[in-house]
C-alpha cells in the first residue's frame, strides 16, 4: 500500500482511475496519445500498486514523471479532483522508496549543486557589478534558476526596464534555486532546504518588494512556502513582473512606448502564472498598451491554456515529449494566424524557441519583458 487509509490520495485514486473526462485536455496525452500518460492512466497504474495487485516497474515510475503538473485536469474536472496532488505525493513516495530513475537523481544533484555548477559570471548579463547584493533596498529582482541558466537576455531586458522606471533595485550575484524544481521531482525535503536558503538570503537584503519574471519562483515564494513549515516572506510584497509593471503604469511611473508595427501577437498563459496563480489580465493589458490591440487568443486560453511541455522540469527530464508538446502550441498559434508568441515564463520561451525552429514556422518567440523593452 502506498497511501494511508482514508487519505486524500486514496480518494483521488478512486475517483480518477476509471474516469475519462479530462483525457482530451491533458497536454501530455495530446502529444503521445497514450492512455498511460493521462490522469486516468496514472491513477489506474498507481491504484493497482496501492492495492498490491502490481508492483513498481521502471516503466511505471517513468510514466509518473511524464506529467508536467500543469493542473489542467483539475481545472476542467467538475469536482476539481487533485490529480496534480496525487502525482506530487506519488513522486514523494518514489523518492521515499528509493526507486527514482537515475536521470532524475542526476538532475536533483545538479539542482542542489547549482551554485557550484554555475560557471557563468553574472557580468555575462551586462549588468553593473554595483547592482548586486545591495542591502536595505526597495526592490529585489529574482531571476530564477532557469532564466539564469537558459535565458540571460531576459535579465538584461528586465534590468533596462527597471532602470527606466528609476527605482532602486538589486539582484543576487549568486541567486541559487527556489526549490520548486526539486519539489516537483518529489524531493520535498531538499526543496524546503533550498527555499529556506533563498529566503534567508532575501531576509538579509530586507527588500520591501520582490519581483520576478519567473512564475516558478513566484509560485514558490507566494504560494508554496507559506504552506511549508519554514519561515516565509509574510511582510514582503511579491509580484510577477507583469503585475508590478502594470501597477507602475497605473501610478504613472512607467509609460510604455507604443509599437503598432507589432501585430498578430498571441499570448500564451504559463501554467504556473495563470492557472496556478491567477494572473491573466496584466500581460494582456501590457500587450494592448504596446500594440494598440489585445493579443490574439488560443482556442484554449487563460485557465484552460495548454501546457507548453516545460512544466515540472519535463524539458530536462523528458525533452523529446516537451519538444513535441511545444510544437503543438506553435501549430495552434499559427492556426490563429499569429506572427509572434509572447509568454511570461522563461521555460515556456525556451521550449517555444526550440519548437519554432524545429517546425520551420518563422513564428517569433519573445518574453513579455522583451516586448516591453523594445
Amino acid at each position, binding site marked *: 500500500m502506498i497511501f494511508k487509509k482514508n487519505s486524500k490520495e486514496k480518494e483521488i485514486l*478512486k*475517483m*480518477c*482511475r*476509471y*474516469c*475519462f*473526462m*479530462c*483525457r*482530451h485536455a491533458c497536454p501530455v496525452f495530446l502529444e503521445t*496519445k*497514450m*492512455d*498511460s500518460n*493521462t490522469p*486516468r*492512466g496514472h491513477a*489506474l*497504474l498507481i*491504484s*493497482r500498486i496501492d*492495492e498490491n*495487485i*502490481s508492483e513498481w*516497474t*521502471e*516503466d*511505471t515510475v517513468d*510514466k509518473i514523471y511524464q506529467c508536467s503538473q500543469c493542473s489542467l485536469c483539475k481545472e476542467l*474536472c*467538475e*469536482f476539481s*479532483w487533485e490529480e496534480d496532488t496525487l502525482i506530487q505525493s506519488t513522486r514523494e513516495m518514489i523518492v521515499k522508496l528509493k526507486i527514482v530513475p537515475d536521470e532524475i537523481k542526476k538532475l536533483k544533484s545538479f539542482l542542489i549543486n547549482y551554485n557550484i555548477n554555475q560557471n557563468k559570471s553574472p557580468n555575462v548579463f551586462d549588468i553593473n557589478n554595483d547592482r548586486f547584493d545591495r542591502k536595505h533596498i526597495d526592490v529585489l529582482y529574482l531571476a530564477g534558476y532557469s532564466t539564469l541558466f537558459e535565458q540571460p537576455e531576459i535579465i538584461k531586458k528586465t534590468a533596462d526596464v527597471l532602470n527606466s522606471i528609476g527605482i532602486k533595485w538589486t539582484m543576487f550575484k549568486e541567486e541559487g534555486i527556489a526549490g520548486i524544481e526539486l519539489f516537483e521531482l518529489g524531493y520535498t525535503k531538499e526543496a524546503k532546504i533550498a527555499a529556506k536558503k533563498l529566503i534567508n538570503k532575501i531576509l538579509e537584503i530586507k527588500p520591501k518588494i520582490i519581483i520576478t519574471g519567473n512564475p516558478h519562483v513566484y509560485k514558490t515564494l507566494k504560494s508554496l512556502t507559506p504552506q511549508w513549515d519554514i519561515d516565509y516572506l509574510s511582510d514582503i510584497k511579491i509580484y510577477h513582473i507583469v503585475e508590478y509593471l502594470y501597477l507602475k503604469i497605473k501610478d504613472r511611473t512607467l509609460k510604455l512606448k507604443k509599437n503598432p508595427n507589432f501585430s498578430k501577437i498571441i499570448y500564451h498563459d504559463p501554467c504556473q502564472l495563470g492557472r496556478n496563480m491567477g494572473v491573466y489580465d496584466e500581460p494582456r493589458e501590457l500587450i494592448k498598451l504596446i500594440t494598440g490591440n489585445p493579443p490574439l487568443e488560443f*482556442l484554449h486560453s487563460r485557465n484552460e491554456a495548454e501546457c507548453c511541455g516545460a512544466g515540472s522540469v519535463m524539458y530536462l527530464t523528458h525533452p523529446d515529449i516537451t519538444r513535441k508538446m511545444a510544437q503543438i502550441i506553435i501549430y495552434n498559434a499559427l492556426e490563429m494566424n499569429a506572427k509572434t508568441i509572447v509568454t511570461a515564463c522563461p521555460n515556456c520561451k525556451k521550449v517555444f524557441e526550440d519548437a519554432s525552429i524545429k517546425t520551420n514556422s518563422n513564428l517569433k518567440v519573445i518574453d513579455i519583458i522583451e516586448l516591453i523593452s523594445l
Partner: protein
Amino acid sequence: MQKTWSNSTKSIRNKLVEIFGDENVITDQSEIECQKVDVWWITRYKMLQEKDFQQPLAIVFPENKEQIVSLVKFCNINKIPIIPRGGGAGDSGGSVAIKSGITVDTKRMDKVLKINKKSLTIRVQPGILQIHLEEYLNRFGYTMNHLPASFNTSTIGGFVSTNGTGILSSKYGKLTDIVHQLEVVLPDGKIFKSLAVNHHSTGPDFSKLFIGAEGTLGIITEILCKIYPIPEKMAFLSFLLPNLKEGIDYGRKIMESGLEPCIMRFYDEKDTEHILKNQYKMKGKGCFLMIGFDGLKEIVDVQTKLVSKIISKNNIKELGDKQAWDWWKNRLRSYYPPLDYICEPWMTAVMDTIAPYECIENIYLNMKSAVEDGFKEFGAIFHAHFSHWYNWGTSIYPSFLVKDIPKEYDKAVKLYDDITDACINAAINNGGVINEHHGIGIRLGNYLKKSYGNEGFELFKKIKKALDVNNIMNPGKLGLNEVE
C-alpha cells in the same frame, strides 16, 4: 519496463517497428495495463482483483492507412489477431485483446482532412476525439450534432464502429445517419471506399456493413460525415408527468405530430428521484420529461408553442425551461465521479433497447421485474430513461445496479452474467431490439444469434468468413467466437 519477448515474438516486434517506426510500437507494460480495461464492469472489476487477463503483444499507433494495410497483410500470413481501438470507452469489451494479438490504437490518425461548407461535410481520420472535432467545427460556425456522454473521450472511428448515438439523435440520427462515406482497410489488406453519399440506390449500401461492426470486418481509416450550421436558437420545456405510461404516450404524440425535437428525455420514477432530486434539488414525485428544439428562431418558437398544446392536462406540472437548461449546460457533469458511480466497485451495466411503441412499456416492465424481482436478494436496482424518439418507437436506456457484490470472484461474475441474461432476455422476448450503442463486444455478443435468429446469424458468419478468412479481425467479439 519492456515486456520480455520470446524469439518468435521478437521477430513480430521487429516487423511492427519496420512498418510503424519504433516510436509507434508500444510494448510498455504500463500502456498495456491501461488498455486492458474499458468501461465494461468486468474489465474494471478484474483490474482491481488479482485476476489477470489476456493482453495484447503490442500496441501500434498507425499514422496512415498504408501502415495498416501492411499490418493486416502481415497478421493474415501469421494469423495474428488485430484489435482496433479508439477511445477505449466502450462498455462491452469490444476493444479488449481477449485473444492477445496487436492492438491498433487509431488516436494518432486524428487529422481533419477537409471541411466542405457547401455540401456540409467533413472528412476526417478515425482517431480524432469527438470533442476536438466539434471544437474544430464550432470555430467555423458548424456542428456535427453528435453529442454523446463520451464526447470528451471517444473517437469518431469508435462511434462509427459501435453505431454510436448522441443526445440529439432524435433529430440528427445515429452514426449510420451521420456517415456519408467510409474508407476501410479490409482483412485481406485491400482498401474499400463506399459511395460518397449517404442516400443512394446503387444496390446495397456496403458502408452499413462496417457501421457497428466493431472492427470485426476491417479497420476504418477515413470518414466523411454530415455537418450542420450551429443552430440560431435552442429552446427547452420541461414537465413533471404523473407516471411512465403517460410520459411514453406524450412522447409518441409529439413524434407523430410531426414536431422535430432535437432532444427529448423522459425519466422513470427512480431516475427522476435520483438524478433530478439530487442534482437539481427538485421536489415532487413522478416522471421528468424534457424537450428541446433547435434551428431557426421562428421554427423553434412555433414548435415550442405546439408542444404546450399537446401536453396541457391538469395533472401535469409544467416546470418551465430552467431545469432543462440546467441539464443542457451541465449535461456531462453526471459523468464525473462521484456522481458517476464508475468510481465505485458496484456492479452496473447499461442494456439499451429499442422497440416500437406497441411493446415499449411492456418491455420496460419486464426488464425491471427481471432485475428487481429476479435478484431481490442482492438488492438489485433498475432505473431507466427514454432518450431517442422516433414516430414509430423509442429506446429505453436502462441500467442495473448492485451495490453489495459477492466477495468471491466467480460468484460476482456469475451474478453479473445472470442479471444481464435475465434483463436482455426480458427485452428480446417482448419484442425489444438490443440497441447498445456503447458496444456489443463480448458482453452482448452471444445475444446476436438470438436477435437475428439462426439464419440471420449464419449470414453474418458467412460475411465474416468471406471477408476475414483467417478470423484475425477483433476475434471473439459480436458473438463471432464460433467462426472457424
